């Protein structure tokens, strides 16, 4: 378990722009979705990703389009990182026919195979075994694609997670277990639910490489994930990465989070990924105020447009109720 050294030299102009745009899109869409939920216009359990922007941006940088991802309910950043179009995501949040899952999945269930976004689960820890299966598929195909599964720190308390890690290590599967450690499982801080809070260490015990990295540090995370993905692609088996962040908002879009210690939150806010990256662009990457403003304005516009389009899209028609239950629609004699 090594924390890689920070390396800022590798980001060219295009990469900086991609990363800043992804972080900003995530932050803006997340903020707006929470406002919408609080105002009662978005009738969805929306799980904010604030705090994870750097981890998601780094993930997006190191994955190939044909790599696959299994995510969770806290999926906005993952989906954007994998390339899922924001309008499809937001329409799904609003349960619209134009959503990525025709409005039948909702905020917790995004699926988009063209970008390798294979599934998301609302059941804590359940994605890990499914990612293992996708990893086995890649291995059987003799493909060098990598399968990533993202999950929270709390998910490592679930049996399925441990079964999956054991199996992946046993069969040397090309799976990246990316723990987005935001220190909280709903209302419970990590120290109150885990005997050992060193999750990477636990994973290492299964016989796989495991790293712990500062998930607020884009460069450290980028380097760590890049190394992990290269290792996996080279056929060395699964890697566990524990990216240390903090949950900057409530558990859901509408949840109260006054229980979060104010000093901890304030310290974490100092490290808010998108604003920090903006400062770095200005101070160390030679960007001008105009440069960052240009990205910000176009991102804001895109997010606004996507929300408007989602809100104005039609709901699925009643005929959709019985489709997609089975491959061929079946008569169940229910409404004869």
């Amino acid at each position: 378990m090594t924390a890689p050294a920070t390396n800022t030299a590798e980001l060219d102009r295009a990469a900086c722009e991609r990363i800043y745009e992804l972080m900003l899109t995530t932050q803006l869409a997340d903020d707006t979705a929470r406002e919408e939920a609080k105002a009662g216009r978005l009738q969805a359990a929306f799980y904010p990703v604030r705090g994870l922007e750097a981890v998601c941006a780094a993930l997006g940088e190191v994955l190939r389009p044909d790599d696959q991802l299994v995510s969770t309910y806290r999926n906005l950043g993952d989906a954007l990182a994998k390339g899922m179009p924001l309008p499809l995501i937001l329409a799904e949040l609003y349960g619209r026919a134009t959503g990525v899952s025709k409005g039948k999945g909702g905020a917790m269930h995004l699926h988009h195979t063209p970008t390798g976004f294979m599934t998301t689960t609302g059941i804590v820890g359940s994605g890990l075994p499914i990612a293992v299966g996708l990893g086995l598929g890649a291995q059987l195909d003799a493909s060098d694609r990598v399968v990533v599964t993202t999950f929270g720190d709390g998910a490592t308390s679930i049996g399925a997670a441990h079964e999956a890690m054991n199996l992946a290590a046993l069969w040397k599967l090309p799976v990246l277990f990316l723990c987005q450690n935001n220190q909280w499982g709903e209302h419970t801080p990590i120290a109150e639910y885990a005997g050992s809070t060193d999750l990477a260490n636990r994973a290492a015990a299964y016989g796989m490489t495991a790293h712990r990295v500062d998930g607020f540090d884009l460069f450290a995370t980028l380097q760590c994930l890049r190394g992990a993905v290269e290792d996996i692609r080279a056929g060395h088996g699964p890697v566990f990465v524990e990216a240390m962040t903090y949950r900057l908002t409530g558990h859901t879009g509408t949840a109260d989070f006054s229980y979060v210690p104010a000093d901890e939150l304030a310290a974490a806010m100092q490290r808010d990924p998108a604003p920090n990256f903006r400062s770095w662009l200005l101070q160390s990457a030679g960007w001008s105020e105009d440069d960052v403003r240009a990205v910000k304005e176009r991102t804001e516009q895109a997010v606004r447009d996507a929300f408007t389009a989602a809100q104005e899209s039609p709901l699925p028609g009643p005929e959709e109720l019985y489709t997609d239950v089975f491959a061929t629609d079946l008569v169940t004699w229910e409404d004869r």
Partner: protein
Amino acid sequence: MTLAPPAPGAETATEEMTAAVAMNSALDAAMAADDKVILLGEDIADPIGGVFKVTKGLSSKYGTHRVRATPISEQAIVGTAIGLSMAGYRPVAEIMFFDFITVAMDQIVNHAAKLRYMSGGVTPAPITVRTSVGGSRFGAQHSQSLEAWFMHTPGIKVVMPSNPIDAKGLLASCVFDDDPCLFIEHLNLAYSNKAAVPLGDYRVPLGKAAVLRPGRDLTLITYGPTTGLVSAAAETLAGEGIEAEVIDLRTLMPLDLETVFDSVTRTRRAIVVHEATQFLGPGAEIAAQITEQLFGELLGPVLRVGARFTPVPFSSGLTNFPTPDRILSAARSLVRP
């Protein structure tokens, strides 16, 4: 790749075999036809070839990369099958005993059964989960018939054969079906009776019941292990001048109510028999459906004979399963009240 079933009426070579051997032959044919068919489960590789020997010889023939013995990890077995199916494979996962499916319930009920719908059709999970059930010789945690739980869950097909021929044909259909399928193997029928089973790729379509015996006085509806019991009861009843029609459902989802309604329209009396718990069991839905559709035709209430509402007892002095007497007295009470 999906194979076409043999044309109806085509001459097929057959061989006498038990259901266990017939299921092995279905898996063998499927693996030979399509290298995307992958088996997963505890102890399924040779030399043991599965604790019930259903996969015997297959790892030697197709390699341990395709017949994969797993750790004791039911959630991982089913979850891995789901992921594999998303990667374009046709996984067949073995859960040693039906009871252990409770450990993997999340993966089956929340994931396999729901993915097609939740994704708007984008990521279906066409897996087959094979499991065994049967008898009481293992006690209450190794004998439960839990099929009603899965019939109650939209998105998964439920199949339970009653004889070696169907065991082969239905299993092959499950493997190549585009939906998740739960295939339930009853241990009594897996080893005792032999039948002439077609060799090669043989399919029995899902969702089609079989009329095992025609009759005009009442319809006995059953599936799986009670099929033999019910056929024997029909024989006895015939000796008393009561002609019972016997329907083997074969598939519980999709449920072939067409065949059931057609029969009950003629016989005007029906009894559903199964080894699953009678209270809230599959028979409850079938009886309700018949009553709703054919109320005006019926000459009496639709009766059910299922397991008593107890855990499956171990002692041979106790049984909660339907007995021949219970089936016969239900039939007599209905026809000669």
